[in-house]
């Protein structure tokens, strides 16, 4: 109720009050600056022993899960990444696997055996050292078929995880997996202590230690003095303060109540440009919103329908309107430009041609146009995308009725896998095979378009199993061409993620998945 009232006040009150002013001068509304509450002196706290210090206040959504095996939201992953360590991390700039708790690794020639050595001096927050047994325990937990964890199918390919010595772990795979290091860096694969009974106890080995956690209010982290990386973390304290709404987070940043906001809509990001004391940044990602048509029944089982939709779509206009030009135009394949080794810029879906789209529809038996319902979650840019599509497709005789649904309705009871025409958001992943295996191969768990194409399945298998980089790249190129031509999805853009931080800090490197952003590299200027 509180949010409803504040929403009403936020929109209606200023609307009425400022209307008279606006009639006189229809310029942008005056922006409130200056802190609303009493100034907080935490930022200026000088570090005494270390050359570091300071408190960073981060605005984020509140946590629901704190057990590393169950986390999913950005906020949950952000906290986990600060409190625990991954065995292997992914470099935000090069997108290459990098060591974290693993000091290094050896891969057998046949690609089925991985030997990791652990870093020296890593300890859990309770003081006990991190050993090979902890890694074994963690991964056995994550791949335990009875657990029901999301990681079970991801790690199906693992035959065994064994301690080769006190600080060496050996992973054996049933078949080669060129992306296994990325799999080990899955959001859930945080190393917890052997024999942990309550995995939400925050007993990690990570750069920060949990001081207090007040659900739905905030979580306070203090620097782990014993962290195994020299000079990290740079900050003394991190407070993650929970907000329900992006708008409120951005207002708090403007008012000086928080220092860092990750994730916000494009208009909110735009509103922070040129605000004194705030630095904005954005990261390209491989995340996208896709429009997909069920291909296993009428009307989508006629490939001419999806081809007509592709022809009716103006991707540049969509990027300009929905994303305000941020991000990049999509080519109907989930293998975006971020995957520099695999993305093929030469593959382009057909250019917009409304007449050709009409002709295809007529050929397919819809000379007077076709009526369809487009289902979409009400989050992010998706409702806007739906509105733009409705107007673009209408010109070609594809008449859409929009059904804008709360996420829990759209995804609830697997309704999104049932509907004929829908918009689904897919987050960024460090490697492309994930999308093919979960979204597009025959019988995949989230094959929302019910796509089944033998040629595609064979290419996806090659790409996901071959250890030959050239062969993989070739398979991905063919997949992109195939999808642009007859794939069941339209991917109009790859969206960026936005962040903004107080200019008192430096070392902030926003990740494509914002929750994986490292807090331990941020420091006071």
């Amino acid at each position, binding site marked *: 109720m509180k949010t409803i009232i504040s929403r009403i006040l936020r929109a209606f009150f200023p609307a009425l009050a400022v209307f008279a002013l606006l009639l006189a001068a229809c310029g942008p509304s005056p*922006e409130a600056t200056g802190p609303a509450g009493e100034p907080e002196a935490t930022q200026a706290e000088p570090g005494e022993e270390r050359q570091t210090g300071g408190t960073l206040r981060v605005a984020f959504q509140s946590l629901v899960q704190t057990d590393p095996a169950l986390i999913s939201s950005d906020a949950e992953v952000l906290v986990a990444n600060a409190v625990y360590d991954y065995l292997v991390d992914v470099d935000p700039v090069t997108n290459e696997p990098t060591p974290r708790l693993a000091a290094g690794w050896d891969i057998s020639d046949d690609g089925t055996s991985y030997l990791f050595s652990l870093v020296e001096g890593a300890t859990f927050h309770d003081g006990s050292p991190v050993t090979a047994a902890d890694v074994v325990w963690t991964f056995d937990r994550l791949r335990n078929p009875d657990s029901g964890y999301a990681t079970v199918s991801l790690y199906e390919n693992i035959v065994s995880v064994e301690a080769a010595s006190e600080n060496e772990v050996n992973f054996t795979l049933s078949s080669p997996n060129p992306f296994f290091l990325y799999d080990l860096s899955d959001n859930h694969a945080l190393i917890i202590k052997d024999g942990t009974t309550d995995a939400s106890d925050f007993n990690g080995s990570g750069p920060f230690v949990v001081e207090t956690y007040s659900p739905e209010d905030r979580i306070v982290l203090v620097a782990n003095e014993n962290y195994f990386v020299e000079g990290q973390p740079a900050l003394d304290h991190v407070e993650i303060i929970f907000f329900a709404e992006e708008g409120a987070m951005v207002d708090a940043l403007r008012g000086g109540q928080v220092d860092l906001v990750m994730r916000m809509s494009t208009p909110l990001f735009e509103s922070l440009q040129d605000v004194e004391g705030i630095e904005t940044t954005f990261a390209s990602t491989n995340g996208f919103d896709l429009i997909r048509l069920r291909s296993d029944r009428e009307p989508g089982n006629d490939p001419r329908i999806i081809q007509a939709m592709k022809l009716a779509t103006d991707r540049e206009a969509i990027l300009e309107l929905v994303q305000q030009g941020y991000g990049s135009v999509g080519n109907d394949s989930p293998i975006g430009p971020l995957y520099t080794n695999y993305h093929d810029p030469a593959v382009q879906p057909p250019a917009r041609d409304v007449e050709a789209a009409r002709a295809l529809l007529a050929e397919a038996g819809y000379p007077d146009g076709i009526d369809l319902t487009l289902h979409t979650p009400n989050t992010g840019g998706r409702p806007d995308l739906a509105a733009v599509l409705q107007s673009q497709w209408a010109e070609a005789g594809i008449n859409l009725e929009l059904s804008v649904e709360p996420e829990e309705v759209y995804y609830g009871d697997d309704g999104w896998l049932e509907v004929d025409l829908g918009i689904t958001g897919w987050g960024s992943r460090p490697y492309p095979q994930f999308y093919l295996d979960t979204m597009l191969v025959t019988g995949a768990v989230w094959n929302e378009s019910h796509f089944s194409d033998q040629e595609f399945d064979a290419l996806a298998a090659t790409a996901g199993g071959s250890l030959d980089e050239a062969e993989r790249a070739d398979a991905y190129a063919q997949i992109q061409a195939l999808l642009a031509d007859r794939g069941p999805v339209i991917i109009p853009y790859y969206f960026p993620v936005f962040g903004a931080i107080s200019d008192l800090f430096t070392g902030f490197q926003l990740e494509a998945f914002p929750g994986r952003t490292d807090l331990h590299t941020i420091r006071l200027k």
Partner: protein
Amino acid sequence: MASAATADVTKQSAAPGWGQRFFSLARTLLRRPSHALGTLISLLFLVIAIIGPLLAPYGANEQIVADARDGPSAAHWFGVDTLGRDVYSRVLLGTRDIFTLAGIGTLLAVLIGTSLGLLSGYRGGWFDELLMRFFDSVLALPALLLALLLLGTLGPSRQSVLFVIVIVYIPIVARVVRSVVLSVKTRSYIEAARVQGESSARILFREILPAVLPALAVEAALRFSYAIFLASSLGFLGVGVQPPSPEWGLMVNEARDAVSQTPWALYFPAAAISLLVISVNLLADGLKHVFQMDGER
């Protein structure tokens, strides 16, 4: 004394000369500047609701990519929103939406509420008691909360909003009508009609209803203004009319995130809501005044 006179005058209204009477009422309504203004602006919105599509330079969902996020100008009087839609056209076209929703909703609520109020007040007894206690329990919930509860079960759509407006306002209309019926039904001319052996239906609709009409007209106008507010509130909260409809409340909601970028996309529909609600309120106030004057004459 005044209400007895009202009853007499209204009885005459069925007789010839109603046109003259209408003009005399209208003249009273337009005498005060505030009432006149409210009436004129309300009528203006009504005209826009009817001929809006002829006036709007662009379609409600027509996207002018090149002009997206432009401020008010000669080409786009109210500016352009983030999706490249002309805000002036959307406000014009949204007028019909709000008039049909709030108008039909009010009309149905008044029809059903009046019937129930007449019956309840005239029959009295257990029927009256039961209905009124039920309405009390409905009215105990704030209108917006009740609307949210109903929409939570019905799911958001235009029909649901219409249904909610009707359900929320029936009890209020019924109570107003009932209170007038209670004060009228003991009057001697009603007694006379009953003694003459007239049927209940005839007494209700020919004798009592005319006496209720002035209060009803005022109430209907008030309900209409609240219905506008309710429909746009629901649109704003995202549970009413769904995108991409140019419903004003929904437009305000959609423009909220981008308020520093495209403030015009928020302020113009918000202003349209306030302007319409205020003018309909002034009209209702005027109507009340007119019927009072009429009664005292």
